[in-house]
C-alpha cells in the first residue's frame, strides 16, 4: 500500500511518567504488595474492599483505617479469555482477565490468570498469586494468578534384577533348543508345562523334565481389540493351547490365520524364529499357527 502523506504516527507520553500521589489507603495497599502481602480496607459497614478504596462506593463515607490481610488465594467469579495477548498485556501467552474474590475480601480484584487451556477456567476456580522476583509496590508485583495445586505427579519407580532360577531356567534352555520342557507329577499323573519343581495340586517334587511336542489344541481364546506392544497387529488372538501330552494349557499368540477364523478345538503348531536368532526367551516362538488337521472335539 503506498504511504499516504496525510497519515502520521503520533505518541503522547509524559516524559518519565506521571508521579501519582497514592494517598494513605492505596499507598498502604501497594506497600503491603511490596512485602508480598495483599490487604483490603474495612468500610464503616464492615465490608473488606480489595483493592482498597479511600471512600466506600456504597455510601460515600471514608473507609476506616483498619487494614485486613486477605488471600493470598481466591476464587474466580468470572473471566474473559485473551487468546492473543497484546504488547501491554502482563503475559505473552494466552491468559484470562478474571475477577478474583480473595479469601476474606468482599469485593473482587481484576488480575490475570495463567491457566493454559481455556477449558480449565470456570467460575469457582481456586487461584493463587505468583509474585514477581523484585516487588516495587505496584499491582504488577503479582505477575499473575495460577490454579491451585490439586494433584502432583509422583514418579514411583523400582528397578530390580530378575534372575530366572531353577525350573524357569531349565524351561527356557529348552526353548533355546526349540523344545517345550514339562514334567510329570508321579502322584497325580499330571503333566505340567512349563516345567516346574513342585506339583501345585499335591506339592510333591517333580524331579525330571519331560520333552513335549510343539503341537497342541486351542481350548479357548480371546480376540483382543486393544493394541499391545507384544502383538503384531490388532485384533490379535491370545489362546489357551493344550500341548499334546500335557494336562495344563499355555497361553500364546495365534498367527497366520484371521482372528475370526480361530476356533476352540483348532490344531496348532509353534512357529519358531530361525535357529540363528534363538535365545533362551519366549520370543523364540513367534506364535502358534494352524496345522490344518481336523479340529479336536472339545468335552
Amino acid at each position: 500500500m503506498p504511504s499516504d502523506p496525510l497519515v502520521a504516527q503520533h505518541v503522547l507520553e509524559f516524559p518519565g511518567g506521571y508521579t501519582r500521589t497514592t494517598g494513605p489507603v492505596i499507598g498502604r495497599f501497594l506497600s503491603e504488595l511490596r512485602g508480598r502481602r495483599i490487604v483490603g480496607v474495612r468500610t464503616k459497614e464492615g465490608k473488606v474492599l480489595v483493592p482498597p478504596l479511600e471512600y466506600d462506593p456504597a455510601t460515600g463515607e471514608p473507609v476506616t483505617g483498619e487494614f485486613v490481610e486477605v488471600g493470598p488465594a481466591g476464587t474466580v467469579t468470572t473471566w474473559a479469555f485473551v487468546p492473543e495477548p497484546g504488547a501491554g498485556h502482563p503475559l505473552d501467552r494466552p491468559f484470562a482477565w478474571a475477577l478474583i474474590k480473595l479469601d476474606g475480601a468482599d469485593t473482587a480484584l481484576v488480575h490475570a490468570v495463567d491457566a493454559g487451556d481455556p477449558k480449565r477456567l470456570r467460575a469457582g476456580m481456586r487461584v493463587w498469586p505468583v509474585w514477581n522476583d523484585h516487588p516495587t509496590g505496584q499491582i504488577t508485583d503479582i505477575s499473575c494468578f495460577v490454579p491451585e495445586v490439586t494433584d502432583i505427579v509422583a514418579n514411583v519407580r523400582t528397578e530390580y534384577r530378575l534372575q530366572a532360577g531353577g525350573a524357569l531356567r531349565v524351561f527356557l534352555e529348552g526353548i533355546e533348543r526349540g523344545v517345550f520342557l514339562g514334567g510329570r507329577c508321579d502322584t497325580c499323573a499330571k503333566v505340567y508345562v512349563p516345567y516346574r519343581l513342585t506339583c501345585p495340586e499335591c506339592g510333591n517334587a517333580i524331579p525330571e523334565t519331560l520333552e513335549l511336542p510343539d503341537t497342541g489344541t486351542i481350548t479357548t481364546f480371546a480376540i483382543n481389540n486393544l493394541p499391545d506392544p507384544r502383538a503384531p497387529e490388532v485384533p490379535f488372538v491370545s489362546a489357551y493351547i493344550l500341548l499334546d501330552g500335557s494336562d495344563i494349557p499355555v497361553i500364546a499368540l495365534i498367527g497366520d490365520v484371521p482372528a475370526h477364523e480361530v476356533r476352540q478345538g483348532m490344531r496348532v503348531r509353534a512357529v519358531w524364529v530361525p535357529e540363528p536368532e534363538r535365545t533362551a526367551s519366549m520370543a523364540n516362538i513367534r506364535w502358534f499357527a494352524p496345522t490344518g488337521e481336523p479340529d479336536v472335539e472339545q468335552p
Partner: protein
Amino acid sequence: MGNRCAVIGIGQTRYRSRRTDMSIAGLVREAALRALEDAGLTFKDIDAVVIGKAPDLFEGVMMPESYLADALGAAGKPMMRVHTAGSVGGSTALVGASLIQGGVHERVLVVAFEKQSESNATWALSTHLPFSASLVVGAGGYFAPHIREYMRTSGAPDHIGTLVAVKDRLNALKNPYAHLRIPGIDRAMVESTPMLWEPIRYLETCPSSDGACAMVLSSEGAITGTPAWVHGTAMRSEPIFRAGRDTVSPQAGKDCAADVYRQAGISDPRRDIDVAEVYVPFSWYEPMWLENLGFAAEGEGWKLTESGATALDGDIPWNASGGVLSSNPIGASGLIRFAEAALQVRGTAGEHQVDGARTALGHAYGGGSQFFAMWIVGRDKP
C-alpha cells in the same frame, strides 16, 4: 462360628471416575465417618480397624494402611491390612467379623478403598515381567477366554451378557452412590459398543472408579442402631495353575458357597436367599456365578438371567445396587457387595430395596477366579 456378629453401620462414598476433591485418606475417612454416623458412634467407640485394598501398584503407595491409620482413628489401636486381590473387600469384612466372632473385640471398623484414577489398573495388572510371554492384557483379557468357554459349554445365546449389562445399569439408576448412571440404557446401546476382548463388549465391562466403603461390625453386647446379623462366613482359594482346574466354575467357589450355606442353614439358595450382591465385573459372570453358587444347575444359569429372575422385580434379585458393573473401586468392590447385602436385610437400601428381604448373600472373587469370600446376613438373630 463363634460369638454373634452384626453389621451396625454402613458408609459409602459416591463412586466416580475421579475424586479429585480428596486424597486417599480423605476418601476412606468419608466412608468411615458415614459408617460411624449410621451406627451413632465415633472413632472412640472402635476397638480395631481392618483395611482392605487391591495391589499397591494401583496407587503406587506401598503399605497404605500405615499412612491411613490417622484418617481412620486407628492410632493406639490394633490395625491391619488384608489383601486377597479382587476379593479383598469381602475378605476384609470377614477378617473384621472373625475378630468379633472370636471374642477379641467388641466393635471393629472395616474399610476398603481404591483410587483407580491415580494410575491405570490394566497397566498395573499387565506388568510384563521378563521371561514370561503371557499375552494377557488386563482383567478383561484374562476372563474373556473363560467366558467364551462358558458360552460354548452352556450353549447360552450371545445376548445374555447384554441383558445383565442393561439390568445392572438400570438398578444403578436407583442407587445414589453408583458410578455409572446411564439413562435410557438398553440392549441396542450395549450392542452398539465395540468388542474389547471378544466376546466382551465395552458396556459389558465394569468402570474404573474411585471410592471407599466402610462398615462397623459389632458383638451382640455392643449393638447400636439396626443390626444385620452375620449368619455365615467363608473364604476359599485355589492355585491358578492346576491341571484340570475348572476355570469357568472353580471348585474353590463351590466349596466356599457350600460352607457358607451350611453355616446359615441354606439348602436351596434360590429359595432361601432373598437378594444377592455378587461380584460380576463382566456381565457374563452373572450366569456363570449363578451356577457356581448353586442358584441354577450347571449350564442353566443363563436361563435364569434370561427369565428375569435376577432383575430387581424377579424372585431372586442379583445386584440390586447396580453391582460391580456400575461401580468398581476394585479394593472396595467386594466390601460394597457385603455392605449392600447388609443394607437389604436391614431394610435401608432406599430406592433399590428388595421388599421383605430377610436373608442376603454377599460375594466377592479375585485373581484368576481363585480367591473367594462370602457371607450370609439376615434380619433375624442367628
